[in-house]
């Protein structure tokens, strides 16, 4: 091909590219003359969640034909938060997004989220009294309700009833103690082929501050020195340290939890689903996947207690971007999603514990025909429920503390070393008094 031909084809390609217009996504046809509003809604979930939220959007659209909502699902939670940050950085945030309160501090501190207090006050569809206060307070910043909580979940013990039956062990009671929890897990941990490695583990649990938090609080300890004005961690108090030592000892001392090698080889979640783990601590999010299990029967039990009952809030909320251009339409959607119809649709997935009190107490959630049979433990946990701090730097602090708890859990550091390292490395992320 001669140079002239190369040049000709290059110019032709450039010309054709220039002539090609990017086809904008077509909007549903609104009635002639009607003003059509398009919103974007960003979530992070599995295909079940995506289907549920699409159903929610469809139900909303039948009532609001002038509003179209584009659902964007980023399945990985980490990627979701990164996408959200990139969208905000680019000045094109989603109109509404669903996010856990633990990751919201940055957004609130930067005034990136529109407060909903005034919208709530003017609403004729929803009232704050209808919701659990424990969920609402986790999304309040400087006295304002920033987002509307969609659920009020907490960690519980999922257990394989078949393995309990085979070992001749009674199912967990609602008021079991830490000691009973350990002996049960020990009795269920089995090395069936005698090779020195457990084939069935009694327990599986993430080694993070989120999982350790309820046990610290149950033992009378604290995570922060002052919840209202935190200046540092309080993990070195005797109560907190003892709780952490007990938590870490589940793996290092009692060996009822897979060690780092076994966890790397196969996750605890996978072991439980495959019937090779007797108990697994997780929040309500595990239910849709566990409902697909056909090889064994399972149920849920409350966390074991120590000095007092305690649990940690797991909650996501609908938040409105302050930079959003269609805030009235966005509120209409949040209002619908937080109302009876919206929460009923989402409760049907099994994944959420509704933040609306009446709905949580209804058969929509406590469905006797759907697993887990003992769903009430999620509601029983509410009175002792606390939430992790809402700080602009909480993601840093949580990351550092979790990293060192994991190190202690898998024997890389002692509990004392982990606490000291966490104190030292997290210090820069607390406000200077």
């Amino acid at each position, binding site marked *: 091909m001669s140079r002239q031909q190369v040049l000709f084809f290059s110019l032709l390609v450039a010309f054709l590219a220039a002539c090609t217009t990017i086809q904008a996504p077509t909007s549903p046809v609104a009635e002639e003359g009607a003003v059509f509003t398009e919103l974007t809604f960003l979530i992070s979930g599995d295909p079940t969640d995506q289907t549920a939220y699409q159903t929610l959007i469809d139900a909303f659209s039948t009532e609001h034909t002038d509003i179209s909502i584009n659902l964007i699902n980023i399945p990985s939670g980490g990627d979701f938060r990164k996408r959200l940050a990139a969208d*905000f950085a680019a000045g094109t945030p989603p109109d509404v997004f669903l996010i856990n309160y633990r990751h919201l501090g940055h957004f609130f501190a930067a005034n990136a989220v529109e407060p909903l207090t005034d919208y709530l006050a003017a609403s004729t569809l929803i009232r704050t009294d209808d919701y659990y206060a424990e969920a609402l307070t986790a999304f309040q910043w400087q006295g304002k309700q920033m987002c509307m909580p969609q659920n009020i979940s907490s960690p519980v013990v999922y257990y394989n009833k078949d393995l309990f039956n085979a070992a001749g062990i009674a199912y967990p009671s609602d008021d079991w103690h830490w000691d009973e929890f350990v002996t049960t897990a020990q009795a269920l941990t089995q090395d069936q082929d005698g090779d020195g490695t457990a084939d069935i583990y009694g327990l599986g649990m993430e080694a993070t501050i989120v999982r350790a938090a309820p046990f610290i609080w149950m033992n009378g300890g604290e995570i922060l020195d002052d919840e209202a004005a935190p200046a540092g961690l309080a993990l070195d108090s005797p109560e907190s340290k003892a709780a952490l030592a007990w938590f870490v000892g589940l793996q290092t001392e009692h060996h009822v939890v897979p060690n780092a090698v076994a966890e790397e080889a196969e996750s605890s979640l996978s072991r439980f689903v495959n019937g090779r783990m007797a108990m697994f601590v997780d929040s309500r999010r595990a239910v849709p996947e566990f409902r697909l299990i056909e090889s064994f029967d399972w149920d849920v039990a409350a966390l074991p207690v120590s000095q007092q009952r305690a649990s940690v809030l797991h909650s996501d909320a609908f938040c409105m971007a302050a930079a959003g251009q269609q805030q009235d339409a966005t509120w209409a959607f949040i209002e619908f999603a937080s109302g009876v119809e919206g929460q009923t649709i989402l409760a049907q997935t099994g994944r959420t514990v509704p933040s609306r009190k009446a709905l949580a107490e209804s058969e929509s959630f406590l469905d006797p025909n759907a697993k887990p049979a003992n769903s009430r433990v999620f509601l029983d946990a509410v009175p002792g429920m606390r939430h992790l701090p809402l700080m602009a730097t909480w993601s840093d602090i949580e990351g550092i503390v979790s990293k060192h708890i994991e190190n202690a859990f898998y024997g890389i550091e002692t509990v004392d070393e982990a606490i000291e390292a966490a104190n030292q490395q997290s210090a820069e992320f607390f406000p200077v008094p």
Partner: protein
Amino acid sequence: MQQNEGLLDSVILRKKILAFWHNRHVSSYQLELGLLLTPFLLGTAVLLLLPMLLTIFLAFTSYNAFTPPQWNGLQNFITIFQRDVFWIAVRNSLVYVSFSAPLQLLGALLLALLLYHQRYGVREYRIAAFLPSVIPEVAYALIWLWIFNPLYGPLNKLLGWVGLPEQAWLVNTATALPSLIFMSCFRLGEGMFVLIAALQGIPPAYFQAAALDGGSRWQILRHIILPLLTPWLLLLLLRDILLSTQSSFAPVYMMTEGGPGYATMLLPYLIYDEAFSHFRLGHAASMLLVMFVVMGILLWLVYRLLGGWGYTDEI
């Protein structure tokens, strides 16, 4: 006389016309060249130069993605230099690059020496050696995640069969970073092909002369092949240093997330985490700038230590 002058004028005019056409031809060629290069240059400017300049600017600002960047001088550098995890990441990155790049080069050289002769089946071997280089980084990381599985992975199964102790690979702080370096050593296909081409360019007369003089294989390698390959080896080493730095992100992101502890925390992952998990884009940009400088110094040191491009004659 007038006729001669007229002839002279016509010759001059003809020369002028020819010169004009010649000049026009040159400018037409330059125009073509410019037009063909324009898309690439535009892409380079928009996708590389502009972000690089923005990064340099952001390195001196406080920027959280929600509000406009605010100038804060050297504060970002002071903050990151005070953080242990930054120095751990710098140390780990230097260890990773210092082993990964030379090992890739050594592997490429050995394979090139084995496979540059045209023999039966050599093409299949070359394809097999090249395959790891064309697998997307994410897929490559997932494959190695399976290979390194401490209980079910083929690597430990193999060690068990030959009676060697099985390893925890990515779980043990002592073996996690070496494991990532090990897996990077197999992406050497491009280097191998460059060196095969370089080897095939060495005049056969050199080898014939060496054979006549009774030169051993080692002497031929030491005194003929390696000196003649020096420019290629240096080029590939510099390239591998840069690529190792960049390509270390995917395995850390997919396989270890910097753990266990901070054993595999490398600068590209720390920068990403700082920017998109903690919204400190100013800190991330300052780390990136430090990484540029460190890599620049490393490349310069390698270039100087190896004495520049070495043998400069055409081969």
